[in-house]
């Protein structure tokens, strides 16, 4: 048996880095702060890889099943003898996988940021918050009980808020930070109510009890019902709302595109690779409960995922801001992961959706982080986010060009790049379960290939824009992470997930089905081909198409007016109608009665002060009288 206690350091080192950089960062030189942060994270990364090696290969499956390990566990709060909150490290295939993914991407972003954030006045602050975020995210995935996970959810929300608002002089950044915080916090409320429901009925927060496959603890929840739906379904739906907020699923997706106001490494780390998959991770963590206890909720999960995926892909086609395109593509890909979980069964080959979701999470982390960091490199070179300012960059930025190309091929699902393998598994799972979701997913695959190629051709080929300065390749601290991630994006598809991360921990046979793979490759190539026609050379065909589509185009460009809808609901309806009437009620009725109470208390206080006369005889009298009154009362009461 291997002692995994050291895993606690994977989490603690980033926390220490946060404290050190937060307290003493301002006294350090920028480069020192950056190197310190990166070194700390490097240690965590190495430990994570060691853990993964031990867990998956050295120990391996016992009787064909990967065992979950409670590596570290302390009792933190005991509410009752049974209901206790623990903090600790819980290792199972998905948490070990997440440790590797998070530390890898985070390390790349750390190194990249040393170059990208160079000269920024908030350099040390940025790195300390980056460490805080990494800590929070790791804390979340190794959660040993659901409250720890909730704390992690809140902490990542907080650090995301801090990092989106990094350029706090910019009003847009501040607004985006607020929006992200409020929307996700709102969703977390659902999560919390879900937790309360689950713990109330089962009497435990502990994952080892909740997800050990013994469904009997949920019997009470399944029996009780509320508004025609049993409590467990309610609880799981509420928990899913929490996940949907963090993962920016429709209709809580509105914060993610705005979050792109943060520095690009933050977008790569938080809003592409790690935090936004927290919702996926949450559903995966509770998957066994979803599947056996609340299949209806899982059905909802599948449809929300599929819809988000399609919806975001359509919007992505029309956007011009390079980071926003990537943000919508992130939404779309997370939709994929969620729908894969939604259509998954449990155990063996049935659980292919679960495996596919985790697989896609990993490959997506690689290629999406790569895309964002590549975009950052481009923005760094030409100081603009707008697609219309770019063109012909392949000559100036060869490394960015090649790595970006690998990422685009990967996300488009072209073999042998990683995205193909994981997407193929998702499509296979959807095909088995639900044809509507399958066809929508295939369509999304085509759209993805199209909009990513549009981006790619416009930026690196297309028209030759006149630049103020000649764009140049980024420094090596930025390109090396790109190269490392591109290796991941290219080859992560060959990781045998079916032998490592499966729904029941057991290995199953997975094979490539040509009837799934060929159509998806076909439609991806078709998407790329169309993009090639329209965007490879500068032409006015795209403009013609957009004018002919008119209204439809404008709606999509404005993201289906979802922001406006939310604004209308919040500002016009909630603020004006509801809030104002409540405010009136508050001013007149609540304040009035409060003032009344205050007046009564004041008067009583004045009057009763006379009792306190300073006369000893009176005190003694009241003492004795009080005793006698008590005696009389009790004589009356009990006799």
């Amino acid at each position: 048996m291997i002692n995994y206690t050291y895993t606690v350091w994977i989490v603690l080192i980033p926390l220490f880095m946060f404290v050190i950089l937060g307290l003493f960062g301002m006294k350090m030189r920028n480069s020192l702060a950056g190197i310190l942060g990166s070194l700390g994270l490097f240690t965590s990364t190495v430990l994570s890889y060691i853990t993964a090696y031990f867990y998956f290969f050295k120990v391996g499956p016992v009787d064909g099943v990967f065992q979950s390990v409670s590596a570290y566990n302390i009792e933190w709060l005991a509410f009752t003898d049974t209901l206790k909150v623990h903090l600790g490290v819980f290792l199972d295939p998905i948490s070990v996988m997440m440790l590797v993914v998070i530390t890898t991407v985070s390390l790349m972003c750390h190194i990249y940021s040393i170059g990208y954030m160079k000269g920024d006045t908030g350099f040390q602050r940025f790195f300390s918050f980056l460490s805080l975020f990494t800590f929070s995210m790791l804390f979340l995935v190794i959660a040993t009980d659901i409250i720890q996970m909730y704390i992690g959810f809140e902490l990542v929300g907080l650090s995301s808020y801090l990092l989106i608002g990094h350029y706090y002089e910019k009003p847009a950044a501040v607004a985006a930070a607020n929006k992200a915080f409020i929307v996700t916090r709102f969703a977390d409320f659902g999560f919390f109510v879900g937790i309360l429901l689950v713990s109330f009925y089962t009497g435990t927060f502990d994952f080892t009890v909740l997800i050990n496959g013994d469904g009997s603890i949920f019997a009470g929840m399944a029996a009780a019902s509320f508004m025609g739906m049993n409590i467990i379904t309610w609880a799981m739906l509420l928990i899913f709302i929490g996940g949907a907020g963090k993962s920016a699923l429709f209709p809580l997706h509105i914060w993610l595109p705005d979050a792109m106001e943060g520095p690009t490494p933050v977008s790569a780390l938080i809003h592409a690779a790690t935090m936004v998959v927290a919702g996926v991770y949450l559903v995966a963590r509770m998957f066994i409960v979803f599947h056996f206890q609340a299949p209806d909720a899982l059905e909802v999960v599948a449809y929300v995922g599929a819809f988000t995926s399609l919806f975001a892909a359509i919007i992505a086609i029309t956007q011009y801001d390079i980071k926003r395109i990537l943000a919508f593509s992130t939404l779309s890909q997370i939709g994929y992961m969620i729908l894969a979980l939604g259509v998954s069964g449990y155990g063996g080959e049935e659980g292919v959706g679960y495996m596919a979701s985790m697989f896609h999470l990993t490959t997506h982390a690689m290629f999406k982080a790569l895309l964002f960091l590549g975009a950052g490199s481009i923005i760094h070179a030409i100081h603009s986010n707008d697609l219309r300012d770019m063109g012909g960059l392949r000559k100036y930025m060869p490394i960015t060009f090649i790595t970006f190309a690998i990422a685009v091929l990967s996300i488009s699902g072209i073999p042998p790049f990683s995205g193909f393998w994981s997407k193929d598994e998702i499509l296979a799972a959807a095909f088995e379960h639900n044809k509507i979701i399958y066809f929508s997913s295939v369509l999304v695959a085509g759209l993805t290939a199209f909009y990513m190629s549009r981006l790619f051709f416009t930026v690196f080929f297309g028209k030759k824009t006149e630049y103020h300065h000649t764009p140049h390749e980024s420094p090596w601290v930025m390109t090396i992470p790109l190269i490392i991630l591109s290796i991941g994006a290219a080859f992560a598809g060959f990781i045998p997930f079916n032998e490592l991360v499966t729904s029941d921990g057991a290995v199953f046979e997975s094979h490539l089905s040509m009837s799934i793979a060929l159509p998806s490759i076909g439609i991806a190539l078709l998407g790329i081909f169309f993009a090639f026609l329209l965007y490879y050379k500068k032409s006015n065909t795209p403009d013609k198409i957009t004018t002919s589509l008119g209204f439809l185009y404008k709606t999509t460009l404005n993201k289906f007016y979802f922001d406006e809808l939310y604004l209308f609901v919040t500002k016009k309806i909630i603020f004006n109608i509801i809030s104002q009437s409540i405010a009136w009620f508050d001013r007149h009725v609540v304040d009035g009665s409060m003032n009344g109470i205050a007046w009564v208390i004041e008067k009583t206080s004045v009057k009763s002060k006379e009792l306190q006369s300073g006369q000893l005889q009176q005190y003694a009298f009241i003492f004795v009288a009080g005793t006698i009154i008590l005696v009389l009362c009790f004589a009356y009461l009990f006799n």
Partner: protein
Amino acid sequence: MMNLQDFLPMRHEILLVFLMIVIILCEIFISEKSKHYVINISIVLFVLQTIVGFLPIQQGNMFGGMFQNDLFRSTLKNILSIGVLIVFLQSSGWLKKEENKGKISEYFLLLLSTLIGMFFMVSSGDFLMMYLGLELATIPITALAAYERNKSKSAEAGIKLLLISALSTGVLLYGISMIYGTTGSVYFADVAVNFGKSSLQILGLIFFVAGMGFKISLVPFHLWTADVYEGAPISVTAYLSVISKGAAVFIFMIILYKVFGALFDMWNSLLYVLAVVTMTVGNLFAIRQNNMKRFLAFSSIAQAGFILLGILGSNAMGAASVAYFVLIYIVTNLGAFGVVSAIYNASGKEDMREYNGLYKTNPMLSLVMTLALFSLAGIPPVAGFFGKFFLFTSAASHGYYILVLIAVINATISLYYYLRVIKAMFIDPNDNPIPYFKTDVPARIGLVICVAGIFIVGFATSIYEAIYKFTSLM
């Protein structure tokens, strides 16, 4: 045959007596000029006493069960010791004043003898020992209240305390005599076994509660509190409001649980009523006080009402929540008193309105005061919140939802007057605020202990769990 080892359960008390002897010797042998060394000697000795208190204790009974010591009781004594230590630290500056020069050791001797009384009270196994302890705790404190003999207010406080406590002791003794008369024993264990439900016993219970209600200053037995608190020297007031009250609460709780189990319903409804009245009246009176000492007096009455909620929990959790709350209350209230006393020593001011603008001149003291008041009001994340939380939980776990609701309303009202002080210090303008002054080192150490306690005790759940463990062993 008794040998010396048999006295080990009494270690706390024996050491205290030894300590007093040392102080007397110091008083005799130290020359007039260097008398103030007695302060430091006493403090250092008491630090040792406090530390030794935490060493593993011999559990056991003595004198045929009259004296009992176990882990729970020694924990209670340790809590009280910490409080007394803080009081000593805070009184050092005041004792060094010219007017107190001739009576320094008097202060320590009297205070320590009341502490011995309280230790005996907490450790008592029968009514007689409890009564003796109570008297030993009360009589020296009346002398202490009148410590500033030249001030008429102090003398008034002393005589008032003496007379009212005589009355309350009379009532208490009357109650005990009824219990003895009906059960034929004064031993807690025997009394509990022989309890019927005769009306004489109920009467005994009520008299007992009234007598103890005086010590804990429950309404309507509280009227002495404000006058005595105002008149007595500040460190004595602090001692009265925290240590004296805490010790009384402990033994009150132990006796209710151990002896009056048969009258469970009676004392539950009795305490229910007293809790409601005490919280409400304490709050109502506190609103209008401007003198800081009177203000804290009424706030301490209200807090006593909250403590009753924990006692009503009537199980190990209830007892633990009370002990835990008292610990928090000690650091919190002594923090507040420490600031009041520092300001009084430096400027002679103790009116809330004179605190206006204090933050500008003495920011550290204002912050400490703010923390202490937040903790008294029970605002998270400071310790007071956790203390109240556990008290309320233990009452709620017995189904006293309405009582908890009343308590929450009262806690909200209390927020108003606690914030008044904070408003005075931070917001209200003042052309000539109390000028900056340096607090003496021992008092500063005392305040640091309080602030650390306010933060640590709430967060370190291990403290609560340790108390809970000892309680369940009781």
